[in-house]
């Protein structure tokens, strides 16, 4: 009888079972590690930018973003905003103005003087950054269109194109994203339209090619990738206010004394720091902007 037809000796049979079990165990560990990596790992941007003194590192500013058009977690915009086409780009200024205009962005950029502004940025979620923007004042830009006396509010609207902004296919927010300011807020010299960051053009995940920056208000007011500015007599219906009116007010001034209904606003974590800082009224710009709100109850008009 051929030797190969004999049953496998018991000790060999057992060691084969041990081998298979060991392989299965190792496989389960590799699979677990891979799943955890897939589900949780977060990568920062590569390619360093020179530091700007006092500013949050470039790799944090450009990878930790709320830009729901590209996904609701903060790392999605940096990964998914590549589909946004920032040229050609038009920005229309319309509504209660005597000189409405549809701007080609490059024409617009050739007509303004850009300046660098290092601003604190406070998110309604309780974190903050210091960001070196490059841009121009919104107020002076609006003045060029000769607003009428009916212009009491300014509405700014983000591009609405699910082809370029894939998360607009979901209904997590009512697209397009709309934000607004009272005309005197929009005319304040601290309110800017930013087209750059860290001395370079604006990365897509940060709201390229042009966005609003209002440093004394929570970050969601600073609408990104703007295609339309409309001057209005009535207060515009803004996106987050419409989504949850008891949580996100029209004014949304940074205010440690007015908690979000679900969390306190008394403190903030500055990105890059482990501890928390006390949040300051108007994000520390009170000397410049507090007079805009004289006589208003900031608890009611939060």
């Amino acid at each position, binding site marked *: 009888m051929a030797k190969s037809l004999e049953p496998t000796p018991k000790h060999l049979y057992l060691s084969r079972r*041990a081998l298979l079990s060991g392989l299965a165990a190792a496989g389960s560990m590799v699979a677990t590690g891979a799943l955890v990596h897939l589900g*949780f790992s977060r990568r920062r941007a590569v390619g360093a930018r020179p530091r700007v003194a006092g500013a949050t590192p470039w*790799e944090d500013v450009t990878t930790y973003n709320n830009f729901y058009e590209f996904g609701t977690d903060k790392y999605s915009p940096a990964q998914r905003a590549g589909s946004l086409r920032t040229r050609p780009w038009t920005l229309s200024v319309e509504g209660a103005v005597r000189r409405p205009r549809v701007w080609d962005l490059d024409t617009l950029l050739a007509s303004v003087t850009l300046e660098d502004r290092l601003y604190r940025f406070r998110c309604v979620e309780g974190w903050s950054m210091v960001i070196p923007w490059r841009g121009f004042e919104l107020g002076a830009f609006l003045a060029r269109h000769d607003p009428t006396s009916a212009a009491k509010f300014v509405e700014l609207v983000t591009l609405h194109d699910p082809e370029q902004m894939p998360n607009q296919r979901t209904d997590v927010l009512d697209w397009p994203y709309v934000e607004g300011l009272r005309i005197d807020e929009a005319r304040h010299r601290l309110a800017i339209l930013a087209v750059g960051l860290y001395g370079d053009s604006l990365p897509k995940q940060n709201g390229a090619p042009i966005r609003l920056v209002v440093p004394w208000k929570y970050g969601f007011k600073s609408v990104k990738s703007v295609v339309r500015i409309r001057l209005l007599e009535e207060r515009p219906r803004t996106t987050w206010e419409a989504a949850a009116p008891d949580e996100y007010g029209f004014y949304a001034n940074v205010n440690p004394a007015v908690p979000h209904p679900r969390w306190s606003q008394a403190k903030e974590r500055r990105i*890059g720091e482990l501890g928390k800082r006390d949040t300051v009224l108007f994000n520390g710009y009170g000397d410049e902007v507090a007079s805009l709100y004289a006589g208003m109850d900031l608890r009611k008009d939060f």
Partner: protein
Amino acid sequence: MGVRFWQGVAIVDGLIPAAMLGYWALTDQMGANPVDFFTRASGELTMIFLLLSLAVTPLRRLTGYAPFAKFRRIVGLLAFFYACLHFLAWLCLDKFFALGEMAQDVVARPFITVGFAAFALMVPMAVTSTQGWIRRLGGKRWSRIHRRVYAVGILAVLHFALLVKADLRLPILYGAVLGVLLLARLTRMAARQ
């Protein structure tokens, strides 16, 4: 290989996420906001192990493979382990041991009320998870304590749903899995009556 070997594998597998979190923390791979990252990751891992622990019994019934029961305690304790990490992140890195502030939050902020209640309910389950406690309490009283895991699951999903700003998809996904696991038990109860 016996059940003990596979129990050991389950424990190692269950601790791999914690090891990876530790490695990422030490090598600065937690992104721009490491505290937020750790808090979210430990919270989601709690949810995942909680759902896995609830899946053990339905899986055992479905497959008829009795040894599954030997993994229920391990998976449950892993859920509690991640819940502890999640709680510690809140205590040490969000509230910096400000116990008064934490008590206020538990009272005033529904998502914290719910999350804290879920954690508090898990503690007696973890404590009485040993053979000795099963003997001391007797099967009936012991199972009464451990049936609270259903409440913990519901509270955990609610905790997650209450804290998101607009995107409810992930809480809904966890809620749906929980719903299936609870339904599996309800249909069985109904069939027995």
